[in-house]
């Protein structure tokens, strides 16, 4: 059957489900009815969506770390520590890379090796191997809502197990957990897998249990232009809503120029609402997440604190509903719990201290967000056109054609023709628009911004700028200037 953007039927879903639950022995223990009952018993204070809605109403920005280790007892201790010592408002369980690739056998080895060596040999929490009950042990040990964060192209079994396991929010999407995280998965396959995951959330919704869903905003985390990440987020929001999801948090990864960063969240917030409304999803709740700097980090911990704090400040000034927090160990490896808590506390300081300041409506931000909106509209119009009105078909065709194109993506289904570079103030612009269908005016705007930089640096606009920009942050800068500039 042709893949379309339409709600899976009960038949389709439950037929597929039989297979999914057999992918690993722990699948057998998922009982949907009991799981719904279990979820219904979770108090509002521990529900992700409720806490986000409250924050949105109050205009404050919540803080959330990334964290996950191999052994579940250690994982609980880690999350409890981040909750108390780290003052986290929201908690994660970051899933390990083997699980993300459905390599549960290797995850099992990782668990065993971790037990032996006494240190976590996995880069996250292997939820599938543990199964429903241990997940419930984890989520019920905490006062704070917990979300599954991963990067899994085929996350169907993980979704089943973790939602039954008491998690109340779930990150990912058919595009955002494919193109930046995978090499060989076709978009058709991952979109189908995520229709399943979203449909499962829809079924919970229909039973009165609201699970928050979050497309992964930052994509590859490196020089991703706001129009690209916004377009992907909006598409995934539409796809999720189609399957019955009612609570969506759209995200964006900090690029570093404050005006552009605030503008990107502003545009994302407005456009997601507009597009959902346009397709009849007026009842879907929208919140936003700002990711602190997702690219390469400085090695030095003090310098990392500065990058973290700058991200915290931008998140608050943009009035994002939550901010995902990095740690002073970012450049080194998975952080210790102390380093994780330190990143949180630095962030909390600024989400508190700056909560009464907003940059959302200053003229420069409004102007920049107007540009992003125009760009996104160009892209999404083309997606609709290519899909003849269908966003799934349109998206697949758009990636094929390079209409949506994510810089530095490992996927072979990504065109890789778009070339981003920073302008003279550090905002991310398009050096080569590839096949992204911007209007001539918009293209000229990007070009002029880069010419401005080129003039300042006394060199032509060229690919060397892109390379310099990737290296720049390692040297402490945002814009990669030639020597002596």
């Amino acid at each position, binding site marked *: 059957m042709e893949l379309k953007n339409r709600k899976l039927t009960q038949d389709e879903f439950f037929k597929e489900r039989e297979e999914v639950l057999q992918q690993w022995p722990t699948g057998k223990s998922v009982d949907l009815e009991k799981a719904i009952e279990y979820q219904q018993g979770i108090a509002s204070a521990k529900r992700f969506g409720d806490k986000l809605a409250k924050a949105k109403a109050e205009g404050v920005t919540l803080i959330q770390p990334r964290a996950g280790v191999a052994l579940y007892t250690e994982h609980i201790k880690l999350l409890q520590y981040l909750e108390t010592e780290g003052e986290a408002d929201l908690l994660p369980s970051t899933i390990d890379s083997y699980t*993300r690739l459905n390599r549960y056998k290797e995850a099992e080895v990782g668990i065993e090796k971790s037990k032996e060596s006494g240190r*976590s040999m996995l880069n996250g929490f292997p939820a599938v191997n543990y199964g429903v009950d241990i997940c419930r042990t984890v989520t019920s040990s905490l006062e704070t809502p917990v979300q599954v964060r991963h990067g899994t192209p085929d996350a169907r079994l993980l979704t089943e197990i973790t939602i039954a396991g008491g998690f109340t929010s779930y990150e990912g999407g058919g595009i955002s957990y494919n193109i930046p995280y995978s090499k060989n998965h076709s978009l058709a396959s991952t979109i189908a897998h995520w229709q399943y995951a979203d449909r499962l959330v829809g079924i919970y919704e229909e039973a009165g249990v609201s699970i928050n869903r979050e497309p992964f905003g930052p994509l590859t985390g490196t020089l991703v232009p706001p129009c690209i990440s916004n377009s992907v987020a909006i598409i995934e929001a539409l796809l999720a809503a189609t399957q019955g999801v009612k609570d969506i948090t759209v995200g964006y990864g900090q690029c570093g120029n404050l005006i552009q960063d605030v503008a990107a969240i502003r545009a994302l917030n407005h456009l997601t609402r507009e597009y959902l409304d346009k397709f009849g999803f007026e009842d879907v709740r929208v919140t936003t997440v700002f990711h602190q700097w997702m690219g390469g980090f400085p090695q030095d911990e003090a310098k990392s604190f500065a990058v973290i704090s700058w991200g915290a400040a931008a998140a608050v000034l943009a009035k994002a509903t939550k901010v995902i927090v990095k740690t002073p160990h970012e450049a080194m490896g998975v952080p210790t719990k102390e380093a994780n808590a330190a990143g949180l506390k630095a962030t909390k300081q600024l989400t508190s201290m700056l909560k009464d300041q907003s940059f959302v409506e200053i003229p420069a931000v409004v102007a920049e967000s107007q540009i992003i909106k125009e760009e996104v509209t160009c892209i999404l119009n083309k997606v609709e056109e290519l899909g003849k009105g269908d966003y799934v078909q349109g998206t697949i065709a758009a990636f094929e054609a390079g209409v949506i194109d994510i810089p530095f993506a490992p996927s072979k289904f990504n065109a890789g023709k778009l070339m981003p570079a920073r302008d003279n103030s550090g905002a991310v612009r398009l050096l080569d628009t590839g096949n992204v269908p911007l209007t001539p005016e918009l293209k000229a705007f990007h070009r002029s911004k880069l010419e401005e930089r080129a003039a300042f640096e006394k060199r032509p606009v060229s690919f060397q700028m892109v390379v310099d920009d990737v290296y720049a942050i390692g040297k402490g800068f945002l814009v990669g200037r030639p020597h002596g500039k």
Partner: protein
Amino acid sequence: MEKKTIVTGVIGADVHAVGNKIIAYALEKEGFNIVNLGVMVSQEEYIAAALETNADVILVSSLYGHGEIDCQGLREKCDEAGLKGIPLLAGGNLVVGKQDFAEVEKRFMDMGFTKAYPPGTTIETTIADLKEILGLS
């Protein structure tokens, strides 16, 4: 002088593509012949590529923390495939978490790697070391 050939790639289930693209670009610019396998490269793929292109070095990147598991046995497989003595370099974020690098290095040397590099190794260091290993400097 003949161009030296280097096989590059990110091992295992690792998809960190940025460093890999940048390394390939920079080494090519430096005059090396680069065979870049991209991300998610298996041990077998490295070996096949090295054999096919008669490579002088295999440069393994691993960022995501599972490098220690993914790299086990690579030297032995190289030996078996007839790549005895080929320089094997590893770099990136080789292990999970912030660990004393001296220990990490030792573990990789014990696995038969020629050299192992700590997080944040600059491209300048990488190039300088490659030249030394290949007797170019």
